[in-house]
């Protein structure tokens, strides 16, 4: 397993090695990054199949714009983990700060701990599974994808939601504008079962509530002006 010491080699050097290995599919095994020291933008822009483990906590935008790579952070992550991810997977063994999975188009973001505010903001197709709780304004303007929360959700969940689907097992402090509780039909139980399985989550899908868009804000109507 190639080991890259971030403190010794520096961010640019470490990312360049990973990006080249991912793009050229020349990886000689799984990569391990040691001494991340909370640095920002670790393992960003990987553009191919590669397995990377970060041994420790990271700063902002870890695994940003990931495509195809499987990245695990053994620790907690700062804001914007896996932002704009296209595919692949990112696993965080600890907690995640704000904007986890922001604007991401695909792949799986698996957060074993809690996620802070605005988790899944403007998500565009990613699947996010948070084993703990999520903060306020999560899934704000979320366009597509699935957000699964095994714990509780903060205020204004799913505000101005588009077509993303949200599953919460615990309580929701409040729903945002145009976000409503929806019926859990068999296809949703099936979808959730598969998501929980992918994230190794031990939870009963029947305990979850589904939330989605009421679609009442899709077209301007003066009678809805009070919603803004």
């Amino acid at each position, binding site marked *: 397993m190639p080991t890259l010491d971030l403190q010794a080699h520096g961010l640019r050097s470490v990312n360049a090695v990973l990006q080249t290995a991912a793009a050229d599919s020349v990886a000689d095994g799984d990569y391990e990054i040691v001494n991340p020291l909370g640095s920002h*933008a670790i393992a960003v822009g990987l553009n191919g199949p590669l397995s990377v483990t970060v041994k420790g906590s990271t700063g*902002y*935008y870890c695994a940003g714009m990931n495509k195809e790579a499987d990245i695990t952070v053994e620790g907690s992550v700062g804001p914007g983990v896996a*932002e704009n991810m296209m595919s692949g997977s990112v696993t965080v063994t600890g907690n995640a700060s704000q904007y986890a999975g922001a604007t991401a188009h695909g792949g799986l973001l698996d957060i074993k701990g809690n996620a802070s505010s605005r988790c899944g903001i*403007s998500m565009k197709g990613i699947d996010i599974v948070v084993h703990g709780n999520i903060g306020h304004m999560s899934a*704000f303007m979320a366009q597509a994808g699935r957000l699964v929360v095994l714990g509780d959700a903060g205020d204004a969940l799913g505000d101005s939601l588009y077509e993303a689907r949200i599953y919460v097992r615990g309580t929701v402090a409040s729903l945002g504008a145009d976000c409503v509780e929806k019926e859990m039909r068999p296809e949703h139980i099936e979808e959730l079962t598969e998501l929980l399985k992918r994230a190794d989550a031990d939870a009963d899908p029947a305990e979850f509530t589904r939330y989605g868009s009421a679609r009442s804000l899709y077209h*301007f109507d003066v009678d809805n002006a009070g919603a803004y």
Partner: protein
Amino acid sequence: MSEQPATQSDLPRTKPRYSATFTPEVNSEIRRAAATGIYDIRGAGAKRKLPHFDDLLFLGASMSRYPLEGYRERCDTDVVLGDRHASKPLHLDIPITIAGMSFGSLSGQAKESLGRGASAAGTSTTTGDGGMTDEEREHSDKLVYQYLPSRYGMNPDDLRRAEAIEVVVGQGAKPGGGGMLLGQKISERVAGMRTLPAGIDQRSACRHPDWTGPDDLEIKILELREITGWEKPIYVKVGGARPYFDTTLAIKAGADVVVLDGMQGGTAATQDVFIEHVGQPTLACIRPAVRALQDLGVHRKVQLILSGGIRSGADVAKAMALGADAVSIGTAALIAIGDNDPRWEEDYQALGTTADAYDDWHEGNDPAGITTQDPELASRLDPVEGGRRLRNFLKVMTLEAQTIARACGKNHLRNLEPEDLCALTIEAAAMAKVPLAGTDWIPGLNPDGW
């Protein structure tokens, strides 16, 4: 003989008098709002009369200045953008770039025209809020990829195939506002690129989803550089709100280029009240921005691109004399390729408007085939011809700017300076920090020269 009393109809009457406050235009807008329950939405930039470059004049050369031969001596026009940190800065032949305008707001033919024209003139064009299309990439030698709050269509592959990245914080038509594209223009293709249901009224975010201030932006720019191997220049575009502080903070965050867009800058669709009442005129923005660059010791190292109502080579020369490194055009480029052309007057009349006043770009019914997603209307615009017209316009603007620069004794457009200018109005003198014509008075000048 006594006069017969005049009848009521013979008495002199006070002429009907329109209110300067409640003008017919104001009243019609009140009635429209009352009838529809929605604010007026339109395209283009501020239409009100504002202090602008027309309020400045070049002094030219005479006894105390030595001109260059107008037709024989060189006056160069090239500019390098983004050489502060990027390993591959942009080298442009002319300091006039094409501003960001989205596929979605514009037809594919319009985007292709802009790419063709810009490439033929040796300059760059820019994507918009909706991602990069293959057509515009193919027809643009130098393409700037916008990184917007919505992140519609954002992906690392397009990030890498762009020549530069423009982080859009705001735009002059609506500083503090987000994008807007109404359902009429959200075709299946546009919706697919933006991951939205087709036909909805799209109102995109006004703030970036994963950073909130200049400290965060600095880290965001680091991420973008890491993803693209530190090759691409990173622009930061701001609307004309607080240009001194916005420019200062953009530089602090690591921008290679600051794009500053005044309130005459256009938009595809925004509330009229926003366009006309928020932001500062372009002329009022440039000097505070240049001061910020100079205060930080990076003037000409971090380049400044000015936009918002640039229409001619005179505007280009004036912007550069006041300290800009380049300008950007949007509305003028659309007019060059055929927007608001009187040849479509019959169609404009049918829409209740007239050529040169048509601004309902959000409705998707553009007779010129530019601000539309209607295939039939869009087919009216020939991208090859549109590209030729834009190239011609860019060349004329450049020749005009060169003409002025030579008359001022400058062998490069970037050598123009505030000392070459005077102002026709007190307002313009105060904003541009050049003397009122016939005086040595610069209103509002501080002891430090600003």
